[in-house]
């Protein structure tokens, strides 16, 4: 008995030794949004993982508790939730977000500069980056990508990132640069943005991930909900173009349960990338190249910002681009680019990115 008591005493000592001196990691979803929605309306929640159980380091206590009047609650022995009143955002009923996916490969930085330039003109309220952020696996490349996003944030445009399959190749770098959470939930003005890591097992959700999503959706209240995940939810199916260049993979694990949740909770839009091509599906999995205005969630796939372009579905347009989504009066008002001949919004089309001089597209 004594030797086991000694063993456990040494175990506790070594646990303290690992965590000493007290430090903490902010479990923020991304650089621009350090807080998740709080448990009470009008509040936000900061979360930190501490190196020692029930010890919030002094710097965190000062910033969150003393200066902002936050209340500390320990979600687990080393996870502190600090709830503070939400800052006033000043967003009206109109809200604009931009979604991008499948960014650039080294050597094509001019496209990223062009994107920043266009964002400076467009002034979205937030940018969502839906995976395949870094096609090179080095720390320097991740830092370069982070640098681009910081420039957006300096203009007051928060950035929320979700990982793609390429992030799995340098997963510790992704976690270091974009926050220690694969899945996260953030409130932006009238929106609740949920980011999901669909790249576990390349294209799957897991059962507990689905449970977490259900909780987020149930707590959304009157917020308009938008979900971003890298993999398209539906396959191209009958709308597939030829052999689609070997691409066209879609969500495999719990796809039906995911779609049911989106319909049940009236999710406005589910944003994806991965195909390097534009597409929009309805909740039945039909490609909607007939109209942009149909009831139910819009399952939107957005073309690549800078990597090779593909043609996956019968939708003929191929270009680098991003997706602009406009919300008005608590609903998704517009998500496609340009008007058709009848004056109504064109279906599917994303906003083309202007090509910098000397740079050519490289469709497959």
């Amino acid at each position, binding site marked *: 008995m004594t030797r086991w008591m000694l*063993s456990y005493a*040494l*175990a506790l000592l070594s646990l303290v030794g690992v965590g000493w001196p007290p430090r903490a990691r902010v479990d923020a979803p991304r650089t621009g949004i350090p807080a998740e929605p709080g448990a009470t309306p009008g509040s936000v929640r900061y979360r930190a993982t501490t190196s020692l159980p029930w010890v919030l380091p002094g710097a965190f206590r000062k910033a969150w508790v003393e200066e902002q009047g936050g209340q500390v609650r320990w979600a687990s022995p080393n996870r502190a939730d600090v709830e503070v009143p939400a800052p006033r955002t000043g967003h009206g009923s109109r809200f604009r977000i931009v979604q991008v996916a499948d960014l650039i490969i080294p050597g094509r930085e001019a496209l990223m500069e062009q994107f920043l330039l266009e964002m400076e003109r467009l002034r979205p309220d937030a940018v969502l980056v839906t995976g395949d952020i870094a096609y090179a696996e080095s720390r320097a490349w991740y830092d370069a990508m982070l640098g681009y996003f910081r420039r957006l944030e300096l203009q007051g445009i928060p950035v929320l990132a979700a990982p793609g399959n390429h992030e799995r190749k*340098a997963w510790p770098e992704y976690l270091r640069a974009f926050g220690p*959470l694969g899945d996260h939930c953030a409130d932006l003005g009238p929106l609740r943005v949920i980011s999901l890591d669909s790249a576990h*097992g390349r294209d799957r959700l897991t059962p507990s991930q689905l449970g977490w999503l259900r909780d987020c959706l149930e707590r959304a209240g009157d917020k308009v909900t938008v979900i971003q995940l890298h993999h398209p939810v539906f396959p191209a199916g009958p709308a597939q173009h030829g052999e689609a260049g070997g691409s066209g993979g879609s969500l495999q694990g719990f796809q039906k349960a995911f779609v049911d949740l989106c319909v049940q909770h009236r999710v406005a839009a589910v944003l994806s990338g991965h195909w390097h091509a534009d597409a929009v599906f309805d909740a039945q999995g039909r490609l909607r190249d007939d109209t942009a205005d149909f009831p139910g969630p819009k399952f939107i796939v957005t073309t690549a910002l800078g990597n090779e372009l593909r043609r996956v579905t019968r939708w003929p347009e191929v270009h680098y681009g991003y997706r602009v989504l406009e919300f008005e009066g608590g609903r998704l008002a517009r998500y496609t680019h340009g008007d058709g001949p009848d004056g109504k919004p064109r279906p599917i089309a994303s906003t083309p990115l202007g090509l910098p001089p000397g740079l050519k597209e490289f469709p497959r």
Partner: protein
Amino acid sequence: MRQTWLILYLGTLVHLLTLYGWNLRQPSAWLVLVPVLGVLVLPRILKGRGVLERPLLLRGAGLAGFACAFFFVRSVHLGAYETGVPASNLLLAGAGLASLLPGLAEASDNGPAAWLWIGFWSCAGSLDPALPLLGAGLGGMLAGSGIWGAELPLTPPLALRRPFLAFLVFGLAYPKAWWDFQLRPEGAWTLGVLALGAAFAAVPWVRQRIGHLPESFLVGAAGALAILYGPAWHLAWGAALGLVLGSLWGRLGRSSWAPAAGAYLLGLCVSFALHANAWVPGLRHLVWLGN
């Protein structure tokens, strides 16, 4: 001690590699295979050479294993294990190899107490997924220094006839909570409860009662649990798999340990291939119930 190494070291090693990836283009990343090779070949190499009967060597190995584990865990605490960092790989491999020796030297198992130790450190994994490694390193030090000592010898009522198959199937089932919870800490509680289940199965009067269950029943139960996993009942699932593990472990002979460890590792790897989408038609629908 041997199950401590198997679950807390080998299990956590694979867990970390699946959580953070394995950069095989970095030569030092291959170092983590050294303890894996060690568990497969060292029992044969060291057999009858008297190396494992030198207390000073075992004490030194245990201490080195703990030191490596401590500094490794400290370096990745609140961060991530990067296989591109040679020092991390060296510490991790050192921890595994050095803490393996006291386990090999042990004359017998520690019964429920060892499983409780595993449960404690598995639960500590909710604080940080790398922490169970510290339990393996500290366990090696305590065993090597004789503090744990030899427990009552086990007299299994039945010997495991097919240890390879049994531990292969167990290896398939064991990491389900890892895949499901990924970076969330709840999976650690599942594995903590699993160890408690194994401790319960190792209590002598329980072992007597479940000792006569057919081996095929236990293997079938482990196989069924590999499919019947659900986050809503993950603790009950862990307890059931723990009972199976404890019962299997109680029947494992000393000479069967290395094949069982190899089979367990193979099971983890096959599970990884399935959950990481190895495009196996038909099987992928069994990966998650309700998928």
